């Protein structure tokens, strides 16, 4: 073989590898954004750091598992049901635990959410044991191939649904009456209340919406990976990283942050070290903090 040909071959190979990493990152970024948006909405509107976010994510995955595997419910129906149950669970958490703490400081609600998180995770462990479960999906097993790139139908579907849900959330926040109430509450809770916005309802709805998105993310990713009770921890830590990256409370920030994190992880583990994959998000947080402590898309907060 001529030396030149080998060179070109290697370069082509590494370009393929780069493109494959990029494609993986885009697909992954969609679900990260979905996780981040739910968390950032809840923080922005309610000023609650939601530690149960990861557990609602795991809940979505377990509902999916329970419906599809033992009960044999249609995959797509189960997906809708998982999201709906996630919304209900979110509303229940808000009404049960948070509605009474509306004027409490951020640390108090945080402690309550940590308590709820521990209780929920161990309930999952008790109900489903620590053994990993996997969910069958109805997609063709052969991946979609395009040159040297390939992606499974299941992941493509996940990306499509995640994008739809993100777009739907944008629409809801920016062009509906509910969205208007949300934005008003976000800007100034007291004024919004004076102008007739039912803050308690906005809170419940926000928490339910955020939880629905988390449950949807869990239900989407459960079939891609495996379902274990601790799956929520990693998801929650990623969601926190995304939200800090984007700036607490910013929906655009969470979306962009989701993709940035996905690219950082995929490229970092592809070209630096695969072991530090999960560290990328935190390293980004620390870098951001050094440069711009309030995140990339921070909303101006007045210090009074």
């Amino acid at each position, binding site marked *: 073989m001529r030396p030149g040909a080998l060179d070109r071959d290697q370069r082509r*190979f*590494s370009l*393929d*590898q780069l493109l*494959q*990493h990029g494609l*993986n990152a885009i697909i*992954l970024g969609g679900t990260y954004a979905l996780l981040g948006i739910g968390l950032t909405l809840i923080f922005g509107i309610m000023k609650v750091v939601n530690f149960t976010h990861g557990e609602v994510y795991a809940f979505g995955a377990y509902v999916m598992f329970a419906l599809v595997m033992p009960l044999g419910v249609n995959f797509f129906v189960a997906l809708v049901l998982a999201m709906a149950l996630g919304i209900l669970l979110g509303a229940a958490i808000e009404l049960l635990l948070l509605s009474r703490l509306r004027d409490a400081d951020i640390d108090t609600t945080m402690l309550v959410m940590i308590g709820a998180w521990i209780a929920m995770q161990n309930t999952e*462990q008790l109900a489903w*044991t*620590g*053994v*990993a479960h*996997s969910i*069958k999906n109805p997609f063709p*097993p052969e*991946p979609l*191939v395009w040159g040297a790139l*390939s*992606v*499974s139908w299941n*992941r493509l579907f996940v990306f499509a649904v995640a994008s739809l849900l993100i777009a739907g959330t944008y629409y809801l926040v920016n062009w509906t009456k509910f969205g208007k109430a949300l934005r008003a509450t976000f800007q100034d809770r007291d004024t919004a209340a004076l102008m007739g916005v039912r803050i308690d309802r906005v809170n419940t709805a926000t928490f339910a919406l955020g939880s629905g998105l988390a449950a949807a993310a869990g239900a989407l990713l459960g079939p891609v*990976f*495996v379902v*274990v009770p*601790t*799956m929520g921890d990693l998801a929650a830590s990623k969601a926190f990283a995304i939200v800090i990256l984007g700036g607490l409370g910013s929906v655009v920030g969470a979306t962009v942050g989701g993709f940035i994190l996905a690219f950082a992880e*995929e490229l970092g*583990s*592809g070209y630096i070290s*695969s*072991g530090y*994959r*999960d560290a990328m998000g935190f390293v980004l947080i620390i870098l951001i903090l050094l440069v711009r402590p309030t995140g990339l898309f921070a909303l101006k907060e007045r210090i009074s």
Partner: protein
Amino acid sequence: MSIQFGRIIRTCAIFAPLLFSSAAGAQDAIKIGVSEPLTGAFAASGNYVAQGAKIAEDEINAAGGVLGRKIQLIIEDNKSNPTEAVSTVEKLTQKDKVPILMGAWSSTLTLAVMPKLEEYGVPMVVETSSSGKITTAGNPFIFRISPTSEMEAKAFQPLVAKLGIKKADFLFTNNDFGIGSGAEYAKMLKANGVEVGVSETMDPKATDFSAQLAKIKASGGDTLIVTTAVEQLTLILKQAKDQQLKVRVISCGGSNSPDQLIEQAGEAANGTFHTVFFPPWFPEVTKNPDVAKRYMDEWKKRGHNVGGLTEGFRGYDGIFTIVAAIKAAGKAEPEALRAALWGVQVKGIYGDIAFIKQGPAGKESGQNIPSVHLVTITDGKVSKLGL
């Protein structure tokens, strides 16, 4: 300040009775401590081993126990974590006062508890771990019935030429099990003229391997040697298919549960090779088919997952080995059991279990020489490859 100390004393007074009133178990049964990963990254395998151990316990007790007493397993969850494994041994030896232990599944977990065995002078039968370090570290309380990675790699050797392996890449967990196995296989393959490509590692808890698989794809080998437990293996096979990684996948370490792979990875499991230490699809090839049959029948009768058969037998054999030692020693005391283990002869599923000496002279550990089998999955069925 002063007043608050009064509170502390009172609080202690309230809790002291709770602490000291530890339940005294059944006096007459002989206790056997078991430390297995019932939760965490190795939960599936750990639970299978525990199920196998319980089958052995019931079978032995149904036959009248040993030395006229029943045996009682005390199974503690080491949560797939080495520090937790140490605390289970602490609890089993100090609180339950068991004279002998079985555990702790993964090599890292076993290595973690070994200093405690020496500290408290309690022997342990190792049912799964494969790292060479375990029996060469000079711990005279270790008796391993599972094969080492080196034994496994040596057994695999004839197949290198048969399968036509030219260049192999590695993917293994970054723990003693994965690293030990990777090193032994790489050594064996190099000695047989096979080129070794990339060696990628993964955290035992990782679920997304796209980056590693992309690198392995870029390396361009014809074979991928994977060492991990069945949970990660399932995901790796699925994701390798998604990324069109068209290489021969060989999984080693024997914790690969081919049946579970077929069930959970589906088509992605086809064309893969696996080393197992017990092939339940053709028990007749084992040294003691009647023992294997008895174990399999009971396993199925209890409705356990058939995917766990390749794992549960380890616990079954481990308990029978311990009971053989108790019978030989005539009493359930640690030092007597340790001495007795050197002489046991058990007809087990691993083969005929007996211990040879390994490690530095004077502080040798016991090592069994079990049989190794290679199987392959085609069209959702497991078939045998000659070894």
